[in-house]
């Protein structure tokens, strides 16, 4: 089923989203099955028999029934809203002490990553996209743009957030699994939008620290 096709998220927040999606999916599947079933049943069961010219019974309304079928979906969506609101507050929760804070700047057509508290800066281009490391655990990204609106999207995080010129937007994720995760720009940003990619490698804290000091030693403005 589709729910099984949702990618396994590698962040705490992504897992919450995945769980919410799965709940929505089964509720939706139930509603679809009932509604499509009723339509299908009507099509098969109430097909006119050839030569039958008598009018069917002409009934017009049933207020009780209509109130009920208005109320039930209303209750379902309120339930879904509440579930979704809980997940929302968890996904948007800000961590007090992130293991790393990365300033991410989008521009046509690449990403610049700067590590707060260091001089490390990794700059990507369409030909040579940025490849950066982050530690597992809590990581804060502060997103902005120097030109048009971009969107910082890592499919394996099941998450994206826009990088808007003139604004800083902070998002926090808790990365549970080591690995290399592809990222793209999700908001259409002009000619080479499709080439505005990056990749994030999540590693143990120690390895990240080593990488960071190497980058620092290599000097400012180093690229991958």
């Amino acid at each position, binding site marked *: 089923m589709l729910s099984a096709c949702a990618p396994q998220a590698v962040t705490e927040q992504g897992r919450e989203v995945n769980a919410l999606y799965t709940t929505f999916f089964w509720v939706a599947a139930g*509603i679809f099955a009932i509604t499509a079933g009723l339509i299908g049943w*009507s099509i098969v069961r109430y097909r006119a028999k050839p030569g039958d010219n008598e009018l069917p019974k*002409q*009934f017009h309304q049933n207020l009780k029934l*209509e109130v009920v079928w208005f109320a039930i*979906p209303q209750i379902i969506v309120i339930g879904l809203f509440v579930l979704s609101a809980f997940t929302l507050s968890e996904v948007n929760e800000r961590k007090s002490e992130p293991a790393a804070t990365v300033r991410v700047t989008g521009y046509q057509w690449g990403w610049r990553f700067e590590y707060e508290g260091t001089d490390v800066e990794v700059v990507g281009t369409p030909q040579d996209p940025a490849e950066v490391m982050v530690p597992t655990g809590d990581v804060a990204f502060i997103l902005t743009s120097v030109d048009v609106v971009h969107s910082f999207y890592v*499919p394996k995080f099941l998450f*994206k957030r826009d990088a*808007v010129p003139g604004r800083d937007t902070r998002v926090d994720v808790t990365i549970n699994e080591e690995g290399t995760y592809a990222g793209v720009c999700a908001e259409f940003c002009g000619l080479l*939008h499709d080439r505005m990619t990056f990749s994030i490698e999540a590693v143990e804290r120690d390895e990240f620290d080593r990488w960071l000091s190497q980058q620092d030693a290599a000097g400012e403005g180093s690229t991958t």
Partner: protein
Amino acid sequence: MATGDAAIHASEPHGIAAWLTTVDHKRIGILYLVTAVGFFVISGSLSMFMRAELAQPGLQLMDESTYNQLFTMHGTGMMFLFATPVVAGLANYFVPLHIGAPDVAFPRVNALTYWLYVLGGVVIFSGFLTASGAASFGWTAYAPLSESTYTPGAGADLWIIGLILVGTSSILGAVNLMATIFGMRAPGMTMFRLPIFVWNIIVTMTLIMFSFPVLTAALAALFIDRNFGGGFFDPAQGGDPILYQHLFWFFGHPEVYIVILPFFGVVTEIIPVFSRKPLFGYRGFVFATLLIGAYSFSVWAHHMFTTGAVDNPFFSATSMLIAVPTGVKFFNWISTMWRGKLTFPTPMLFCMGFLFMFLIGGITGVFLASPPIDYAVHDTYYVVGHMHSVLFGGSVFAIFAAFYYWIPKMSGRLMNERVGKLHFWLMLAGFNLTFLPMYQLGIDGMARRIADYPAVSGFEGLNALSTAGSGLLALSIVVFLVNFVISMKRGEQAGDDPWGGNTLEWATTSPPPPHNFRRLPPIRSERPVFDERHGDQLDG
């Protein structure tokens, strides 16, 4: 026809000149529909090139610049030059007939709205003839990308000017139809005897009158930014890119209902006819439509959840609530068919296609109303799949239902049933093959509006499938066009009322004479023609 009428008509121009100078609502309706279908074919062809490019990784057919122009003009063409004008066309032709009126309230204004629309469409597409090509910032034209710094060139300005013309046309048309419905109903045609199609047009035209002026304002500001350094949306000058998104979507979400509500109206006219029963819950249906219209102005920022600059819980709540009045319509349609005597000529088949496909579009919309889920799938192919389930699976299936149902009235000839059914099944298969894979592609992380994707992405198979489906879709449209051309020459005579219809258009000839009616049946319900036909069998 009275001799006085004949004398008047003898002095009128004939042939092409008659069409170019007409102020007759039926002719203008046909002009609208033919032009809109023309833009549908053009905009659809653009998407065929896009699907061909996406069939496999790597850029084979075009560069990014061309691709970006194609999806921009595909979206613009479909939304503004096809879907909205089809509404204008159907409403022009059938609202006066439905309410028993001889024409619309302002026939000359009506002609003006049509020609403004044609002019706007030509101006928008003329961007392709400029050195830098057509507009290439998506149909949403987000600032600052749409500012002259990032998208220089005349194509973008032509796009803005053309859209302002088309928007003005829509506003004028809305005023005209509202005046018609409120001022020109036949004796006995009370508000609660109006065909549901007309009710849906009332709500749609209200949405147009409140939303299009906001779009026009946003576009005017953008034009000033681009050409005179206005700085409305430029953060360096104290402007705000988020403001543009608010203005655009304050228009853009009601626009979605502008291009779906009239087609709810269409299927709600057709299903009772082929179920041989009245619409179940007429008043509830009208109430739900009014509620959708009201809610539709409170949901716009769900398009902006990922900006981090809008109140997510509020817009999530309103976006989920609007699913309720939309959803309950399914129960109206189902209980209309319930214990009816159903037949399935082509118009009814397309209505059934609409029910299933729009159901998918509606349900996936609730997913997108949840901000955390939206964070995952926003701006991916999931959204492309969702919007096409709503606008193609919903609107376009219903548009073809309307064509098969009403072309006999407009032309006097029936469309070929067998070819019509072939069209339906091809389109259903093509639609699902094209758009269902997109949901999975989006969940897997394929962003929308990309000219290319990497070969290692795992997106190849589903994209190839989708492209194959789009070929079937195109074929189905060719089948329709061939059916239309041949049926118009050799189709069976339709007679006044080929379907056993309910509403007043079936009480006059096919096509109706100038000024529509020689006599009207008494109007005592929303089904006056049915009442007259079956009066003796009804038990009051």
